[in-house]
C-alpha cells in the first residue's frame, strides 16, 4: 500500500479551503445585479386560498416583482414530481396530488409556498411580503400519522379521499401466517419511528441566472445530485431544455438526504430570473429549513416475530403507517417501501416475512429520505423485536441473534434482497470483546451501588447500499436508472482530471477518488483532481445518496481507468516498438516484458497527444475515456453496534458510557474518512434516539421550528466511540467496497433504546428518550401506563 493509495488514511485535500474560509457555498455566490427572493409561506396547515392581493407589496420600495402560483400556471411551469411509482397491493398506482412550486388554490402545510417577493435587497423583499393580503378559508388539519386515514373532513388531496397514498405489501403472506400458527412464541411490539428534521448545517440556497444573449439558464443550488435536478427542472418542470440549463452544486454544507430533492425555491428562482431579467438569489433562514426541508422517518408500526420451541425465528409480520406529509417529495414513495421492507429480514435467516405499508398524506412538511432512508426504520423494527424476543424467551440477546444469523451466502430473503457476502458472527464477537461484555454485570452492579441504572443494548444491522442496479430499480418503479458515470481526462503532461457524477458534500471524494486514481495509474495524488457538481463539466450523473458514491461512483472510475490503461498500452507499444500484448503496466511504468525498455505514464500521455509515434488512422490521438457503471447488485454493509448507558433515576438523564461499533464495509479506501462517517452517523442516530423529535400541534403548527425547540446532539452528549471494522470483500463491484455513509444512523437508534429498556426493565419508552420521558418511564410500570 502506498502512502496515498487505496487503504491509506490520506488527509483530506478539500480541507484547506474549508479551514481557511475559502469554501464556495451557494450563499457565497453573488451575481452582478442580483435581486433577492423571499417566500411568503402559509401560516395555516390546511386552507383554501380565496384570494391573494399583492398590489400593496408590489408598490413597496425595492420590489421588483411579486409572483404567485397563478404566474407559474400562466407560464405552464410544471409541478414538482415524485420520481418513484409505487403500486398498491390491488395493483392501482399511488395517488399523487398536484405539487405546484407556488400554491394554487390550497395550502397544505405550515411553510407551504404562497408567493415570492423579489426585491433589490432581502430586507426589502421580506418587508414587502408583509403587505401581501391572503384571504384563507382555514380547514381542519390532518396531522396524526396513525389517524390520517380516518381523519374525516376535507382530504389533503382530492385524489386520495381517505388520505391514503398507497397500500404497499411485500413478502409471502400465507407462509408467514402458517409460521405464526405453528409458533411456540410470538413477540409483539408497537413502535413509533419519530419524525426527524435533517438539519444540514448549511441551509438550502439557490441563485438562478438567465443569460439574455444565449437564452441559457444557470442555477447554483445546494444539491446532492445536480444532474437529477437539471433533468427534473428540464424534462418535467419545463424551465428550459437540458442544453440550455446549467446546474452547479458547488461546495455543499451537508445533505443527509435533504438536498437530494428538487424543491419549490430553486424552481422559482431559476424561472423568475428570466421573468425579471436579473439573477435571483434565495437562502433559507433556519426556521424555513425546519418548516420546508423534507423531513425524515415518521412511521407507526406494529410488528410480530414468531419463534419455534428451539428459539429459531420462523416468521415476521409488520404493519406500518408511513406519513409522507403534504406532497410527494422527489423520492418519498421509495423510502417506506423498497428501502424499508426488503431490509426487515435484518441479519437473520427468516423463512417467512410479510410486510404491509400504508402511506398517508398529512398537513405536515413532505417526508423523504434522511440518512439511512427506510433502513433505519427497518433496523429499528427488527432489532427491537430481536431484543424483546430474547428477553421474553430468557435468552442472551447476543446469542439469540447469533443463533438466527444468516451464515451461508448468497442468501435469498423472502423480501427481494439477495445478500451476497457477510460474516455477522465475526462482527458480533469483536463487538462483545471490545465492549467487555463479560464485565457488564459487574459494571451494572457498580452503577446500582451509586443508585444509577445501567443497561446494554445491541443493534446488529444490515443495509442495502450501492444504490442501485438500474434494471432492478426500474422494475420496482424508479423513474431513473441508478448507474454512475466517470470521465478520466489525462493531460499531455500526465496530470489527470476525473469527472464524476457523484457529488461530495462532506464525504471527501476529492481525496478518496484521487487515492484510487493515484493507486491505479502510479502517479502522485497531487497530479489528480476530482471534478464534480457542474452539469457543464460532467455530462451526466446520478449524484450522492444511499452510500453509493464508493460502490457505484468509484466503480465507474475504475471502468474508465481500465479503458485509459488499454489505450495507454497501445501508445506505449508504439513508442517502445513492441507488441501491445508484450507491454506490462505496473507502478506507473509501461515496460516491455523481459526487457528494461520502459516509459512512464506521463511520457505516454505526452506521446498520446503529440502523436508522432503512431499513425492517427490506426490509433486516435489523445488520452481521455469515459464510462457508465451499472451495479450488478446492491451492496450489504453490516455490523454490530453495542451501546451501554447509565441513567440517573432522579433526573431521567441518560448518559452513553460505552459505544462499540464493528462494521463490515468491505474494502476501505480511506479508513480515516470511514471512521468519520461512522462517528457522524452514530451521532445522528443517537440524536434520533435521545433528543430529536419533531412536534406538530393538533392544528398542524410546527412547534419545533428552531434550535431552541429541536434538540440537536452536542459535543458533550457523547463518549469516545470505539470504531472497529471487519472485512468481507464485496463480490459485486471491482473494488470490493460496500459503503459506509449511513451505517451509524441505521445502527444507532435500536442500540440506544435496547440499552435504555435493559436499564429500565421494561419496554415502554419511545424515541426520543428525553430525560422527561425516561423519568416518567422509571416511575410507572407499563401495566399502569396501559391502564391510564
Amino acid at each position, binding site marked *: 500500500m502506498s502512502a496515498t493509495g487505496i487503504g491509506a488514511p490520506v*488527509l*483530506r*485535500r*478539500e*480541507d*484547506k*479551503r*474549508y*479551514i*481557511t*474560509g*475559502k*469554501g*464556495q*457555498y451557494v*450563499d*457565497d455566490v*453573488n451575481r452582478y445585479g442580483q435581486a433577492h427572493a423571499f417566500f411568503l409561506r402559509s401560516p395555516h396547515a390546511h386552507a383554501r386560498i380565496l384570494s391573494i392581493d399583492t398590489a400593496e407589496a408590489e408598490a413597496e*420600495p425595492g420590489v421588483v416583482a411579486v409572483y404567485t402560483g397563478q404566474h407559474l400556471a400562466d407560464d405552464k411551469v410544471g409541478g414538482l414530481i415524485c420520481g418513484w411509482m409505487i403500486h398498491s397491493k390491488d395493483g392501482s398506482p399511488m395517488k399523487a396530488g398536484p405539487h405546484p412550486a407556488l400554491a394554487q388554490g390550497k395550502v397544505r402545510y405550515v411553510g407551504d409556498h404562497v408567493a415570492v417577493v423579489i426585491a433589490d435587497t432581502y*430586507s426589502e423583499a421580506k*418587508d414587502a411580503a408583509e403587505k401581501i393580503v391572503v384571504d384563507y378559508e382555514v380547514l381542519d388539519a390532518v396531522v396524526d400519522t396513525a389517524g390520517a386515514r380516518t381523519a374525516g373532513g376535507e382530504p389533503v388531496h382530492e385524489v386520495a379521499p381517505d388520505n391514503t397514498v398507497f397500500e404497499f405489501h411485500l413478502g409471502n403472506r400465507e407462509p408467514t401466517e402458517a409460521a405464526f400458527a405453528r409458533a411456540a412464541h410470538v413477540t409483539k411490539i408497537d413502535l413509533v419511528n419519530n419524525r426527524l428534521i435533517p*438539519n*444540514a*448545517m*448549511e*441551509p438550502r440556497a439557490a441563485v438562478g441566472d438567465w443569460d439574455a444573449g444565449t437564452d441559457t439558464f444557470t442555477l447554483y443550488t445546494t444539491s446532492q445530485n445536480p444532474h437529477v435536478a437539471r433533468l427534473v427542472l428540464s424534462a418535467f418542470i419545463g424551465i428550459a431544455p437540458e442544453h440550455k440549463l446549467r446546474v452547479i452544486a458547488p*461546495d*455543499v*454544507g*451537508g445533505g*443527509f438526504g435533504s438536498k437530494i430533492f428538487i424543491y419549490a425555491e430553486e424552481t422559482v428562482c431559476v424561472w423568475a430570473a428570466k421573468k425579471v431579467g436579473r439573477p435571483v438569489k434565495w*437562502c433559507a*433562514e*433556519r426556521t424555513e429549513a425546519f418548516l420546508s426541508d423534507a423531513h425524515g422517518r415518521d412511521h407507526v408500526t406494529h410488528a410480530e416475530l414468531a419463534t419455534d420451541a428451539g428459539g429459531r425465528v420462523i416468521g415476521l409480520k409488520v404493519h406500518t403507517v408511513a406519513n409522507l406529509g403534504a406532497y410527494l417529495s422527489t423520492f418519498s414513495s421509495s423510502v417506506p417501501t423498497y428501502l424499508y421492507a426488503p431490509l426487515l429480514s435484518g441479519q437473520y435467516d427468516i423463512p417467512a416475512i410479510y410486510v404491509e405499508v400504508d402511506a398517508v398524506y398529512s398537513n405536515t412538511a413532505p417526508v423523504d429520505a434522511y440518512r439511512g432512508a427506510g433502513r433505519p426504520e427497518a433496523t429499528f423494527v427488527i432489532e427491537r423485536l430481536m431484543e424483546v424476543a430474547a428477553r421474553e424467551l430468557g435468552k442472551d440477546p447476543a446469542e439469540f441473534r447469533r443463533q438466527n444469523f444468516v451464515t451461508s451466502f448468497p442468501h435469498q430473503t423472502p423480501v427481494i434482497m439477495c445478500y451476497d457476502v457477510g460474516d455477522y458472527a465475526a462482527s458480533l464477537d469483536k463487538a462483545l470483546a471490545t465492549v467487555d461484555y463479560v464485565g457488564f454485570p459487574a459494571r451494572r452492579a457498580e452503577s446500582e451501588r451509586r443508585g444509577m441504572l445501567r443497561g446494554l443494548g445491541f443493534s446488529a444491522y444490515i443495509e442495502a447500499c450501492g444504490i442501485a442496479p438500474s434494471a432492478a430499480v426500474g422494475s420496482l418503479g424508479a423513474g431513473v436508472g441508478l448507474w454512475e458515470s466517470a470521465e478520466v481526462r489525462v493531460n499531455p503532461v500526465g496530470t489527470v482530471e476525473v469527472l464524476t457524477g457523484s457529488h461530495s*458534500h*462532506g464525504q*471527501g471524494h476529492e481525496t478518496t477518488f484521487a487515492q484510487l486514481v493515484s493507486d491505479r495509474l502510479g502517479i502522485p*495524488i*497531487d497530479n489528480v483532481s476530482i471534478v464534480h457538481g457542474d452539469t457543464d463539466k460532467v455530462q451526466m450523473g446520478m449524484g450522492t445518496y444511499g452510500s453509493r458514491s464508493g460502490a457505484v461512483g468509484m466503480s465507474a472510475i475504475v471502468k474508465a481507468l481500465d479503458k485509459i490503461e488499454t489505450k495507454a498500452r497501445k501508445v506505449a507499444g508504439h513508442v517502445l516498438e513492441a507488441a501491445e500484448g508484450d507491454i506490462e503496466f505496473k507502478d506507473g511504468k509501461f515496460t516491455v516484458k523481459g526487457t528494461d525498455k520502459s516509459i512512464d505514464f506521463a511520457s505516454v500521455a505526452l506521446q498520446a497527444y503529440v502523436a508522432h509515434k503512431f499513425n492517427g488512422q490506426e490509433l486516435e490521438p489523445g488520452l481521455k475515456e469515459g464510462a457508465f457503471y451499472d451495479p450488478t447488485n446492491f451492496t450489504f454493509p453490516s455490523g454490530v453496534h453495542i451501546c451501554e448507558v447509565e441513567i440517573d433515576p432522579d433526573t431521567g438523564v441518560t448518559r452513553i458510557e460505552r459505544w462499540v461499533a464493528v462494521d463490515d464495509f468491505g474494502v476501505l479506501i480511506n479508513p*480515516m*474518512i470511514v*471512521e*468519520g462517517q461512522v*462517528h*457522524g*452517523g*452514530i*451521532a*445522528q442516530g443517537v440524536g434520533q434516539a435521545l433528543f430529536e423529535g419533531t412536534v406538530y400541534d393538533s392544528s398542524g403548527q410546527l412547534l419545533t421550528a*428552531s*434550535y431552541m425547540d429541536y434538540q*440537536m*446532539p*452536542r*459535543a*458533550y452528549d*457523547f463518549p*469516545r*466511540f470505539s470504531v472497529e471494522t471487519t472485512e468481507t470483500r464485496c463480490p459485486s463491484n471491482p473494488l470490493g467496497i460496500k459503503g459506509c455513509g449511513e451505517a*451509524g444512523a441505521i445502527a444507532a437508534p435500536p442500540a440506544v433504546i435496547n440499552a435504555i429498556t435493559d436499564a429500565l426493565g421494561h419496554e415502554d419508552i419511545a424515541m426520543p428518550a428525553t430525560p422527561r420521558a425516561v423519568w416518567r418511564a422509571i416511575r410507572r410500570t407499563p401495566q399502569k401506563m396501559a391502564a391510564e
Partner: protein
Amino acid sequence: MPKLSAASRHSVSFTVNGVARSVEVESRTLLTDALRHGLGMTGTHVGCEHGVCGSCTVAIDGTMARACLTLAVAAEGCDIRTVEGLGLGPGRLGVLQAAFKRHHALQCGFCTAGILMSLDTYLRRHPDPSREELTLVIGGHLCRCTGYAPIVAAALDAAAELRGAQKHPEETAHA
C-alpha cells in the same frame, strides 16, 4: 431617541484581522451580513440566525461572539477577527487549522469557521485546557457531520502544540 427608518444607512468602521475596513449598512444589518455581503468575507457562515449553532462565531475585541446576533453598527471601532485571519500567512495554515486537518475534524466544512474561532479565542486565554473544558466550548456549536470526537481531539492537540508541549511539522497541504 430618534426613530430609525428602514431606509437609513450608516457607515461603520472597524478592523477585520488587523485591516481597517468601512462598510455601509442598514440599521438592522447583522454583522454576519456586513462581513459576508458588505465586505465579501464569506468565510464566516450563517447557520441559524438565532445564536444557537455557532457557525457565525467571530472574535470581537478578543471575545467570542455570535456575529448573527450582533448588529453591524454595534461593531463600530471594534477589533474583529474571522477565520480568514487564522493562517500563519498566505497559504500557511495556523496551528488550529492544521490540527483540524490532521484529525479529520471537519467534513462539509460549513460549521468549521465558527468552531475554529471559538477555540482560537478560548485557547488564547486558557492555554492548558482539559478535555472536559474543550468539550464544553465545542458544545457551544452544532456540527451535523463529525460527531464531535475528532474536533475535541484536534483542539487538545492544537492546545498542546500552542503551549510548546509538542510540535508538528508545518502543514504542507495539497493544493
